[in-house]
């Protein structure tokens, strides 16, 4: 495989484990043990069983007939929104909670932006009876009240983070500080393909179930396991990593990642890291970052709390650099129109994040016979307030 991580944790020039010594023992343990654990038969069996009976996998690959007609091409939706808790995030947290148990950890920490990863983490902690602490920017706590309440009901402690701009980046900083202060009993469940090696690879492996299912579903529905292209939204990049994973070496399959342009990539209210960013080191990975000339991190903006991260997983930085994947950006405005289009053409209300991938359908050239797979990473339930306010229903 050309696009997998090397033994030092790099995708080309991106990745690595730029960790302070205080995290060395934990990262070293993960690094040396994660593959042995997650590739063991016992782990696979447990993981697969939970994926099927608890998450509700395989998620359907749905041929969106009226949307296809609208675009004059074939559009398939990979329905990650139908997973338990309403997004792809649970694929990763199930994997990591099983891993944490094998490592003998008794306390889980996580960061969350919109609250989807926080809910997915609190869910698996309830499932396994493990103590759970979720860090969330104070601003997001007030913006995403229903998810905060959900996490609490699931038994998690939600800690509002008041440092920095009080959003996802600051929650991630605080989770790392917690890990430094609790190095023995705690596992940090990172919510995307970001952070130090081996997280990007580990999370991508857990999410790779998405493209594995796509292949067999496509074979059944179209006669070929390879589509023309796969589209996914990219915040940190975990749903995109999962949707791309098993197609990475099938170079004829076009891979399209869609970042959040916010109010536009030429404004300073954007989260389109690959468009406006440059290489640097944040959260223990060398990757593309939104930063000033002096190397200070710039706070991103997007209408979708799940995409406003100033970095991007090193895998995507590499796919961008090598040209293996193409990255576009969709504005808030474009995204909201795509939300309404899918809702009224197919009766599916998508998450704001996922609608970024849908918005890209207006930006690319599609032939009538093309097979386009859009990874519908999550459900719009969490975004109803935004939708109702914007559309005025």
């Amino acid at each position, binding site marked *: 495989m050309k696009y997998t991580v090397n033994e030092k944790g790099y995708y080309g020039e991106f990745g*690595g*484990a*730029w*960790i*302070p*010594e*205080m995290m*060395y*023992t934990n990262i070293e343990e993960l690094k040396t043990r994660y593959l042995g654990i997650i590739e063991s038969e016992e782990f696979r069996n447990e993981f697969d069983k939970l994926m099927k009976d608890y998450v509700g996998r395989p998620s359907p690959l749905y041929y969106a007939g009226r949307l296809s007609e609208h675009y004059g091409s074939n559009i398939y939706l990979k329905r990650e929104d139908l997973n338990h808790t309403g997004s792809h995030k649970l694929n990763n947290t199930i994997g990591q909670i099983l891993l944490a148990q094998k490592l003998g950890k008794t306390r889980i920490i996580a960061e969350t932006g919109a609250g989807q990863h926080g809910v997915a983490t609190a869910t698996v902690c309830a499932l396994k009876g493990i103590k759970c602490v979720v860090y969330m920017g104070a601003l997001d706590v007030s913006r995403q009240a229903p998810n905060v309440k959900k996490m609490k009901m699931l038994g998690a402690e939600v800690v509002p983070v008041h*440092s*920095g701009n009080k959003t996802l*980046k*600051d929650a991630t*900083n605080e989770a*790392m*500080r917690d890990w*430094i*202060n*609790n*190095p*023995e009993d705690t596992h940090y469940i990172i919510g995307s393909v970001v952070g130090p090696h081996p997280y990007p690879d580990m999370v991508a492996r857990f999410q790779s179930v998405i493209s594995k299912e796509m292949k067999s579903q496509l074979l059944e529905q179209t006669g070929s396991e390879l589509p023309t292209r796969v589209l996914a939204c990219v915040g940190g990049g975990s749903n995109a990593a999962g949707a791309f994973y098993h197609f990475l070496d099938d170079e004829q399959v076009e891979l399209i990642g869609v970042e959040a342009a916010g109010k536009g990539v030429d404004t300073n209210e954007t989260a389109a890291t690959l468009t406006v960013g*440059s290489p*640097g*080191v*944040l*959260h*223990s990975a060398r990757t593309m*970052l939104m*930063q000033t*000339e*002096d*190397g*200070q*991190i710039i706070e991103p903006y997007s209408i979708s709390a799940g995409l406003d991260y100033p970095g991007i997983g090193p895998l995507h930085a590499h796919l961008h650099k090598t040209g293996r994947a193409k990255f576009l950006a969709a504005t808030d405005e474009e995204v909201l129109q795509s939300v309404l289009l899918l809702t009224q053409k197919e009766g599916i209300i998508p998450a704001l994040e996922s609608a970024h991938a849908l918005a890209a359908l207006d930006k690319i050239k599609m032939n009538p016979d093309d097979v386009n797979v859009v990874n519908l990473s999550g459900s719009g339930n969490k975004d109803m307030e935004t939708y109702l306010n914007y559309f005025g229903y």
Partner: protein
Amino acid sequence: MNNRINQLFESKKENIFSVYFTAGFPRLGDTVKIIQELEKNGVDLIEIGMPFSDPTADGPTIQRSSEVALKNGMSLKLLFEQLKDIRQSVNIPLILMGYLNPVYQYGMEAFCQKCAEVGIDGTILPDLPLDEFDAEYRKYYEAANLHNVLLITPQTSEKRIRQIDEASAGLIYMVSSSSTTGAGKKVEDFHQDYFERVQNMNLKNPRLIGFGISDQPTFVNACKYAQGAIIGSAFVTAIKDSVNLEKDIATFVKSIDPGR
């Protein structure tokens, strides 16, 4: 020329008093004054904090001082500008402490050259791990006669401590406990067994103990187990509203070590 860090540890074997402060805090222009006053009051070594927007190894005090310093307009370029004549008035070793990304944007080679030019003796960059340092950056440090100070913690294995000792040429920064930076600890909060274990390893490099050292008892205790100790958050707090740095710095130094 011998590095000032090595000169210090050759001439002084105990009670080395080291202070961290954040450049650009409380006011943008305080950097040189703080350094001069610390030296005047008998401090042995200074760590100049390069503020970063995302200081993941720091507790609330240094998070806040970094935030203020950045708001005040501090940057690495400006810091070097402020320090350009520092060796005309200050003789003790100076170490730059911060996070990798601002240095990475400045360019590691240019950074090391600039350090040599203004008279910086070492750096502490917690998120620059040893293997990456060796692979990419050691050559620039050596050319600039600059030491990269590495950290050890209570979790660091004996094997790794030996490896870090082997890779170090100035001093080892011993993180006092499993924690981010911050004051408020008492002597009994520290694991003396960790201090003793490392003390008995007979490392070739001298050690300074830092993180959580904040007052006379914790300073004196740390000095029993290492050549000296580093005080950060407590000093940052002591000067945070200072309108008279001269007086407040003298008072602070005396409060830690009345003999200075």
